[in-house]
């Protein structure tokens, strides 16, 4: 019987297999950041252990770092201690690090791909659930906890029980104005926050093949929001074109050898997935969330649902609680919901294509009165590329704030927090209660919807900005 892509990558990394035990899996790339690593380094120190492969480990500062005044010491003393701990741990254990101020600093999941460190067929781990992003290259990439971070630092391996496999197939061409973010939000709404539990999702089909590398990263990034361990997309010419010439991509004869191998990384025709879901991509539309988990979403043309319409008790109760927290009434048209803040950024949508998409909508327009729009590039390189293209000026001319790179308001560990009772349209990945700041209310959106929302002040798509739109 044939094998799936995920099974091929798994098998190629099994260091040891024994009956009744998990497989011991080799890790090709271990990314670390300041929040989930200090206790892991402490564990090494206490046990007198070294980092086995500092040359396969890379640190960057992202979760905590400010996006303003980055040339000054970090004002929050607790954040500063955590960032300083990462620096001293990296120095002590010989781990390469891109600190705040470095040209390669940025969100860990933006930095790895842009350096060409993420390649097809690799295993990539990080103490961050959005490590699934790297699966866009056909890598098996997943988030781990701090104990596992310590384990990988010490051994470059992880004991793991095989994941189950799941195919999510999207056929057909995406309608105009529908982006990767809309696609993945629709998938999550379809299968639920636990729908991918225990599985690696392979995204397949012509709609996926037609996506750029950066759009594929957005899709795989959100796999975790469907409960999946990882998301993957088989590498193809789009992948190879993206990788060629990047700083850490193979060169010369190595490139040819790597390409030969990468082309084998597809699911065999006779392979069987444990679960399959098929979605018609031609029926998708701009999609936003109305609730407090990423599966609580609907097309932007719709309304806030009535909790009593749910047959399942848990879903009904969850919807009731979500509407209370979000301060929403059933039946309200999503397009009529006003926002205070628009956040464009994160490992989901903080890459150059995301900024270009939003800038294309904002150009020549103004952010609505009373709305604050933060634009936070995913990395210093993204910021510099955007400035090269003049996108920073497009945003600042419109009244948006142009910030430095980091996770920022996605999770509000730095000063960029959504105030209590405030409402955001956010291109990030989680609309959990208090995620962006205590009491803050989050609507997940695409960069296009974020930009249009900033202009109109209520949840909107770029189509709403045309003169032919029914209102405005």
């Amino acid at each position: 019987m044939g094998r799936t892509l995920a099974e091929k990558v798994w098998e190629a990394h099994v260091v040891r297999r024994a009956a009744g035990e998990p497989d011991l899996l080799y890790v090709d790339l271990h990314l670390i950041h300041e929040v989930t690593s200090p206790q892991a380094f402490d564990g090494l120190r206490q046990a007198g252990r070294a980092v086995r492969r500092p040359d396969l480990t890379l640190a960057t500062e992202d979760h905590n770092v400010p996006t303003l005044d980055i040339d000054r010491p970090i004002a929050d003393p607790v954040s500063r201690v955590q960032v300083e701990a990462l620096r001293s741990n990296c120095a002590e254990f010989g781990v390469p690090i891109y600190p705040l101020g470095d040209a390669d600093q940025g969100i860990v999941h933006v930095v790895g791909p842009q350096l060409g460190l993420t390649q097809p067929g690799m295993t990539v781990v990080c103490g961050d659930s959005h490590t699934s992003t790297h699966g866009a290259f056909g890598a098996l990439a997943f988030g781990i906890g701090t104990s596992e971070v310590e384990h990988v630092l010490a051994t470059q391996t992880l004991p793991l029980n095989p994941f189950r496999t799941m195919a999510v197939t999207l056929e057909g061409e995406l309608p105009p104005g529908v982006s990767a973010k809309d696609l993945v939000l629709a998938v999550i709404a379809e299968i639920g926050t636990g729908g991918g539990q225990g599985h690696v999702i392979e995204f397949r089909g012509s709609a996926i093949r037609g996506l750029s590398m950066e759009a594929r990263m957005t899709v795989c990034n959100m796999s975790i929001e469907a409960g999946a361990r990882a998301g993957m997309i088989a590498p193809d010419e789009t992948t190879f074109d993206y990788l060629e010439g990047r700083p850490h991509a193979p060169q010369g004869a190595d490139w040819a050898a790597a390409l030969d191998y990468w082309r084998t990384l597809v699911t065999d025709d006779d392979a069987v997935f444990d679960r399959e879901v098929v979605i018609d991509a031609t029926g998708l539309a701009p999609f936003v969330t109305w609730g407090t988990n990423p599966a609580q979403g609907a097309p932007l043309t719709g309304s806030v649902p009535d909790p009593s319409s749910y047959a399942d008790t848990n879903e009904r109760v969850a919807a009731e609680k979500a509407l209370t927290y979000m301060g929403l009434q059933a039946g309200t048209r999503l397009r009529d919901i006003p926002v205070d803040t628009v956040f464009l950024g994160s490992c989901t949508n903080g890459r150059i294509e995301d900024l270009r998409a939003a800038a294309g909508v904002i150009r020549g327009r103004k952010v609505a009165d009373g709305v604050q729009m933060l634009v936070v590039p995913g990395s210093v390189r993204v910021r510099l590329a955007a400035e090269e293209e003049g996108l920073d000026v497009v945003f600042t001319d419109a009244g948006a704030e142009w910030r430095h790179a980091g996770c920022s308001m996605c999770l509000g560990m730095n000063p960029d927090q959504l105030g209590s009772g405030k409402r955001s349209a956010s291109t990030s990945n989680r609309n959990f209660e208090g995620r962006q700041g205590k009491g803050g209310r989050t609507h997940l959106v695409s960069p296009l919807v974020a930009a249009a929302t900033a202009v109109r002040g209520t949840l909107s798509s770029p189509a709403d900005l045309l003169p032919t739109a029914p209102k405005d």
Partner: protein
Amino acid sequence: MDSFTTLTGQAMPLQRSDVDTDQIIPAVYLKRVTRSGFEDGLFAAWRTDPAFVLNQPQFAGATILVAGPDFGTGSSREHAVWALRDYGFRAVIAARFGDIFRGNAGKGGLVTAQVDQSVVRQLWAVLESDPAVPVTVDLQTRTVSWLDVTEPFELDDYTRWRLLEGLDDVDLTLRHEESVSQFEANRPGWLPATA
């Protein structure tokens, strides 16, 4: 890691589904560089509500949490496990767990007993009428029991064994260091290095 065989104690009903790790411990509490003291961040946002179950005196001292489905989804933060442990919980009973949370729990000595949602509902009803009913989580037999009821729970063999023995994963893996070196010798040369 502490070993775990069986635990009999008071249980606390948390009647919510999709309790993600941001709810278990919000990000602002993750800035410590130590491994203890996270109990103050446990369910921090909900604890401001006097009616929240953690604030109800009849459930003070509970060591078992009985939660709705999809407990521990979202972020990989192991601080969620530490917060529950630091607060005094040794086991969580639910119908479904987030995968990463469940893995972390196994490393941190927190038992995640997966049962049918019908069992969770029964327990919620019992605890609502009498919060003092002791509940037993028996890892040897993989059962949850209270009064005259005994229900099986799911937990994989390997995690169960490690919890029973209180074993450290790194020590276990280092026994196979030779296999790791052999594997490394055969890795393709084009694979990237960070330095």
